[in-house]
Each structure stands twice: as structure tokens, then as C-alpha cells.
């Protein structure tokens, strides 16, 4: 029996395990399916990590190493090349070459499995089905980890951060990146990535465009890029043909919650992650979730902060006991929001300020985020600029929670609309 099993040794898992140890927890085990800790950061060899958390710019592997170095100074045990197959309230089932199938008993669990990329089938891209169509992350692994080039003439679909980073990476590897294509009228990536990855390399960004044909019987030979109307439907006759051997997809990330769902944990269809309380605890007591498995973050630094909270909460669960019964405030993402989280706040357990994270569903300028309970408005928060690609944070005071009447709905209103 251990005190805590953390599933995943990426940025979320490492930070959670360390925070649990700092909070005084004894026996901690981290389970990792890859051969080394670090998760997806290992293939993110570009810089830009750590600005918020460490106040300096690091590469992905450097960012992971900071936590790994600290972890090695502890007796936290890590099982690599070990796949978690099943989670229950008090055990994790794992499979590995070394240990076979084992059922590991534990007092708490932190889910930190990360996310996966949407593939071609998720967006029903029409056309032939040749090789040369990869998700940006898979291409990143081939290029940065395996040292293998994936193509010479490249089109990127989707302007999410991984797509932008890979547009630059492919250029640096000697490939010609012909276009970055985005169906929405705005990029879902960070502004700094648009500048540093596209503009600096003269890669054109086609906003409000999508791919309407893919050609190639064996390897990809070309794609057609068409403009879309306000309803995101391709405009006939607007197609531009590109000759290319590679199409990289950066069309969204999906939290990897198969274990979570199989454990019967309540899910939020909006985040595609677990429904959690203020301390990241899921509907299964003693099981916590953090990082991209809970909701997709835009920067690793925010994953770290959230995961430390999960680590402390797991420690408290084991050392102090379950959270006391408490009135609950539901957090609801209303008009203008994609989602908000935590979905539930126990007023007794909540700290002085509770941070609510949310994403908006389009670009807003000079807008106000309004928090309202059944009895009326609780607070208004001015924001000059908000985009779906940038996670927003708002602090709720304990007083607001107490006045809320059990439910707080967030909506966004544009000032001059």
C-alpha cells in the first residue's frame, strides 16, 4: 500500500508528486508509460517554457528537468515503461515488461495522463488517404526524438501552438512550409508563436480557410485550400492548389480520459475532462486530476500550478482525511464561454480566494466578464482582450461564494455591443 500513485510523469505528474511530498506525504509512486519522465515536454525542444513560473525562458526538456532533478532528491519512486490499465478508488492496475500485470494498492490517485491530438478522422477531412499526413505532435516526435525528417514541402492545417511550432521546426530542418491554414477567422495559438514561428519565416497564414481536397495514391502529392464562409462552409471556386508531400494537422487536443471514464468518474462534456472540486478532486473521493487530462492548457507553467494544488490536496486527503461535508457552489460557463472550472466549489474547503479558469468561445475586445448567482450579479471583471487560445483566470472571494446562492454563472459581454 502506498499513499499516492500519480499516473503520468509529464509536467503535471512531476509537479503533483513533488507538491504532495512537500506537503508531507510519505510513500509516492509515479507511473509512466514512456521510457523516461518528462512527457511531451521531451520533444518540445523549443524555448518559451517557464516564463511565468520560473521567470526565465527554458526549453521543454529543461523545464521538465527542473522538476526531475528535485524529484531525484526524494525517495519518490518512478516506474517507467509502465502502462496504467485501470483505476479504482484504492488501486491502480499496471502492465510492464519488467513487472507484468500488477494491482498496486494506494490511498490516493492523481490522474495526470495528458492529452492526445485530434487526427484526420476527427474532422472528416475529404480526399485520398496517402501517407504524409501526420499530426504535428507525431511529426515533432519523428523530427526531434527519432532524428528523422518527415517531408520537404509542407502545409500545416490548424494554427494551434504545436502547428505553429512545427511550421518553424520544419523550416529549420530544411523543408519549405507553404502555408498555415486556419478555419477560424483568428488563430488559436499564442500571439508570440504567430510572430516567432510564422511571421519571422515568411510563412503565410490563411485565416478562414480549410483543406477541401487531399491528393495522392501512395505519398501525399497535393492539397486544395479553400476559403470558408461565416458558417465555416467552403466557398466553391475559392480553392488554391498546393503541391506538397506533407500535411501536418494541429486541429485540437483531447484529454486522454479513458481510465477516468472507465473508473466511473463524472465527466464534463465541455472540457472532456473530469468534473472537479476546488482542490481538483474528482467525483471519486481520493482521486484527483490535473494538467491536460483535466482540461487543455496553453502553457506548461499553468499546468504546474494546477498540479501542485492536486499534489497538496492528495496529501491532505491521506494525512487529514476526506473534505468535510459542505454547501456546494456550481460554476457554470454561460454565454461567451467554452467552459469554466472547477465545476464545483465546497465553500467550507475553499481558500480565501478560489481561482476559476475559463476559456471564451471567440475573440472579445473591451469586454466584461460577469459572475451572477440566482439572486443577481456578484461581480464584474473588465478584460481588454480575450481569445479562445488564452486561458482566463478570475478570483472568487469566499464572500462571493457565500452570497452566490449555490450557483455562479459566468457570461461575457462586449462593452459597446
Amino acid at each position: 500500500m502506498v499513499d499516492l500513485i500519480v499516473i503520468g510523469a509529464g509536467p503535471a505528474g512531476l509537479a503533483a508528486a513533488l507538491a504532495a511530498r512537500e506537503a508531507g506525504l510519505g510513500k509516492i509512486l509515479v507511473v509512466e508509460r514512456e521510457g523516461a519522465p518528462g512527457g511531451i515536454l521531451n520533444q518540445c525542444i523549443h524555448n518559451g517554457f517557464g516564463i511565468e513560473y520560473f521567470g526565465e525562458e527554458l526549453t521543454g526538456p529543461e523545464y521538465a528537468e527542473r522538476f526531475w532533478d528535485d524529484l531525484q532528491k526524494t525517495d519518490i519512486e518512478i516506474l517507467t515503461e509502465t502502462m496504467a490499465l485501470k483505476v479504482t478508488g484504492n488501486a491502480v492496475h499496471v502492465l510492464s515488461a519488467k513487472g507484468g500485470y500488477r494491482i498496486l494498492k494506494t490511498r490516493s490517485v492523481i490522474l495526470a495522463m495528458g492529452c492526445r491530438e485530434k487526427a484526420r478522422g476527427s474532422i472528416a477531412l475529404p480526399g485520398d488517404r496517402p501517407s504524409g499526413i501526420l499530426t504535428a505532435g507525431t511529426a515533432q516526435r519523428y523530427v526531434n526524438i527519432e532524428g528523422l525528417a518527415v517531408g520537404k514541402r509542407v502545409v500545416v492545417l490548424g494554427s494551434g501552438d504545436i502547428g505553429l511550432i512545427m511550421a518553424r521546426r520544419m523550416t529549420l530542418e530544411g523543408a519549405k512550409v507553404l502555408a498555415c491554414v486556419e478555419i477560424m477567422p483568428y488563430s488559436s495559438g499564442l500571439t508570440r508563436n504567430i510572430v516567432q514561428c510564422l511571421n519571422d519565416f515568411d510563412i503565410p497564414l490563411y485565416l478562414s480557410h480549410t483543406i477541401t481536397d487531399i491528393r495522392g495514391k501512395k505519398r501525399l502529392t497535393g492539397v486544395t485550400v479553400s476559403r470558408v464562409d461565416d458558417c465555416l462552409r467552403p466557398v466553391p471556386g475559392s480553392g488554391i492548389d498546393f503541391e506538397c508531400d506533407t500535411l501536418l494537422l494541429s486541429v485540437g487536443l483531447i484529454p486522454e480520459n479513458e481510465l477516468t471514464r472507465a473508473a466511473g468518474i463524472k465527466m464534463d462534456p465541455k472540457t472532456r475532462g473530469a468534473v472537479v472540486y476546488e482542490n481538483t478532486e474528482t467525483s471519486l473521493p481520493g482521486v484527483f486530476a490535473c494538467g491536460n487530462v483535466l482540461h487543455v492548457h496553453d502553457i506548461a507553467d499553468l499546468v504546474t500550478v494546477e498540479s501542485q494544488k492536486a499534489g497538496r490536496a492528495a496529501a491532505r486527503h491521506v494525512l487529514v482525511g476526506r473534505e468535510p461535508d459542505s454547501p456546494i457552489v456550481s460554476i457554470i460557463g454561460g454565454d461567451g464561454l467554452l467552459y469554466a472550472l472547477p465545476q464545483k466549489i465546497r465553500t467550507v474547503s475553499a481558500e480565501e480566494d478560489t481561482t476559476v479558469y475559463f476559456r471564451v468561445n471567440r475573440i472579445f475586445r473591451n469586454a466584461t466578464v460577469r459572475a451572477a448567482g440566482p439572486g443577481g450579479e456578484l461581480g464584474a471583471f473588465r478584460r481588454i482582450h480575450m481569445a479562445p487560445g488564452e486561458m482566463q483566470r478570475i478570483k472568487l472571494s469566499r464572500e462571493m461564494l457565500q452570497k452566490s446562492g449555490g450557483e455562479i454563472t459566468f457570461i461575457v459581454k462586449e462593452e459597446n455591443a
Partner: protein
Amino acid sequence: MLDVAIIGCGITGAAAAYELSKYQLNIAVFERENDVSEGTTKANSAILHAGYDPKPGTLMARTNVEGVRLAAEICRDLDVPYKKTGSLVVAFSDGDLPTLRKLYDRGLQNGVPGLKILSAAQTLKMEPGLSPDIRGALYAPTAAVVNPWEYALAMAETAARNGAAMHFSCGVSGIRKTKNGFALTTPKGTFEAKTILNAAGLEADRLHEMAGEKEFTIKASKGEYYILDKEEGGRVSRVVFQCPTEQGKGVLVSPTVHGVLIVGPNAQKTQDREDLSSTAEGLGFVAEKALLTVPGLDFSKSIRNFSGLRAASDTGDFIIAESKSLKGFFNLAGIKSPGLSSAPAIAKMAAELLLKAGLNFKPKETFINRRRVVRIAGLSPREINRLAGGNPAYGRVVCRCETVTEGEILDALRGPIPPRTLDAVKRRCGAGLGRCQGGFCGPRVLEILSRELGLPPEEVFLDRDGSFIVLGDNRKEAR
């Protein structure tokens, strides 16, 4: 001199090879692609039809019911994922009800066991996910779902184990009539054969015309499909058809042996026999029709789309006969739906035709009719530990979505027809079949294939020869 040259290794060629390998015959299979099931067999509804659809008296009717009966035995003997789910044809209006009756009567004539016409209430009790607007259904308990690639592979592997020679990436480019039979031109040289079984699918007419006179034309018809994630896999537990029309059997919604949901197809004539593209219109049509049957379907859970080509002939029926102009050349052609269901029966008919034509053969004294595959995902912890104790590779998970281990991939590589491509591994082991579609396991499978086959990474293909995935070493390429 071969007794029989089988040309094409889809379900028909594989079933023929399996059947003939039971006899004392010198046989060889020639396939132009680099693996089994590369044509119509890899892209269809993966269903064994009960047999009420074909018009009584046709070859389709004759082979379908017999074929599904044989399939159950073959899948058991050769360890092929198979599930007898039963099927429903649903009526959406009172106008559809006579169609159900007609299918029921046809089924009786074709010898389909257990057919029943159900009321709307009975149908909805069986399948609560169906539209509440349905008016009734035809229930056929003998319909099943199968893994079509593994079905063909299992038969081809068993044929190989029993002595059939298998030639892949070995298309026949010329056929010449000789004194004792035929001479086949292939990339591996000329092969002489007493007889030929033409199981060339979409190319069957052209193959026949390499030596014989035109008798039939293959007319390709494309069908497009969605695969929805396992989260949607439980929407129905039986194969659910709509009432057939002139255009075909309509859009179906069906469970699969892999746990995902298959939705499709439409039917679109095409001149290009290699056109496996999907279209926004086609997929849109499929989604719209499928929602009539199961209104709750969530297409945002799509993990893959694909298209398949039906190899229909202009005769309207299967062609299972000796060529009129070429003695010793047998066509197994125009094998559209229910070809997957009929395959073993077509193979038995082919063997009879060969006997009647004067090819003498007796059963082999020993025929290995057994095949077993380790599939870690379905095993108990105790069984996994027994296997992983002897071979740690059974504990090394390569494909996280489907829990496929390196041990299973190595087993396939040591099998009678080793995979050479990522898709061939996917078809054998399931790695890459799941929700991430090989995003995570692709690089690892490529590495295993490269290592085990002694190929540089740039020569490991996704699917067809030439469908390379990487260019090779980064730094070398950049220079």
C-alpha cells in the same frame, strides 16, 4: 508447374487458397499489393449478412447462407474475431412494411433461419437507441460482425502453413495460353500453371482479358464510412439496416468486433478503380441518413473515415464459372456484397469446378486447421502474467489506445505472412486502430518494423508500396 494459380489475395482469393490447401495440390497465390486484404476486403461494412437480400436463385443467394454458416466454423478454428450479433432492417413508414415482408419471404426461400418480423415496440425494446419513429423491423439472428482483414489473413496464413506459396507485391502483368495451361508474367519471373482462379476483384475483367475474350465488365461503386470512437460503440448492439432501395442496402449502423461503431455506406459510381477518396458530400449524406436510424449518434466522436470500392459486375450476380473462351481459367468475379459472407462457399464452388474440369485431387493426409493469436487486451491478469513471465515483450505496451504489446507485434512478424507496413501491423494486431489513429504508436511500430525487417526507416511504408512515412535522417537530408 502449379496446379492452380490464384490471382488476388482478398477475401475470395484467400478463401480459395484455404479451401484448396486442404488437397494434394501445388498452389500459389499472386497479389499485386504488399499484403492480404488490400482491396475491397479492407474497406467494407465488416458484416456477415444473414442472406435475405439476394434474389432467390442467384449465386449470391446460394453462397450467402452457406457462407455465413461456414464462416462461424472458420472463425472458431482460425481464431478470427467474430460476433453473431443478429441484424435488423427497420421500416420508417407504413410504406416500408411491405418491403420487410418481401425480404422475409426471400429469406425463407434462401433458407435463412430464424427470421422474424417485429413490431416497433419489440424492436425498440431490443435496440433502445433507435429512432422512436420506426414502424417495425425484420430481425435476422444469424447475421454477424467479423474482422474482415483478419478473416482473409487467417485463411491465407493457414493456406501458407499447409504449403500454398504466397507471392506479394507480385502482380500478374501478362497471361499466355500454353499447351498444358498458362504462363503468368510477374515481377518474380514467369510461372506456369495448369489452371487459374481469377480473384482479382476490381481488376478481374482486365485480368480475364489478358488471355480471354471480354465476357463481363467490373463497375466500381464507392461507399464512404465513418468510424466512431468506442464511446459511441454501444449505440446499437446489432447490425441495423434501413430498407433497401434500388441504390443498395442503404446506410447501416453497426457494432464491430473492435468495439467501435461503423456507419455507412453511400453508393457512388466511379470510373477510377483506385479512387478511395472521401468527400464532404458523401460523408454528409451518410451522417444525415444514419441519424434517421439512430438520432443520438455523435459524429464529433468520429475517429476515422474511409472509402471502399464494390467490385460489382455488369451481370448483376457473382460470376463463379469457367471462362467461355479459356479452358482452365475460372472467374470468381463481380464479388460485391455479400462477398465477405459468401467467400467460403464461393471457394467450395471453385474447388468443385476444378474437379469437374478434370483437375484430379485428393484431400491431404494432414491439414493444419488451427491458428491461435495472443491478444493481451482481452486476457485476465493471471493469463497476462503467465505469458509475460515467459516473454516480457507481452508486458511492453506499444499501442496505448488498444493495449497492444510489442510481443503481439513480434508474433505477427514471425507468422506465416509477416506484416511489412504500419497498416499491416494495424490489421494484424490492432496497433493504430484506436482513437489516436497511430499518432502515438506509429513511430514505435515503424521502429520495430525497421529493426525486425532490417529496413531503413524510409523504406517502411504506411500501406501500399511507395507510401513512405519518413525521409530518413534529418541531418543527412538537410545537407
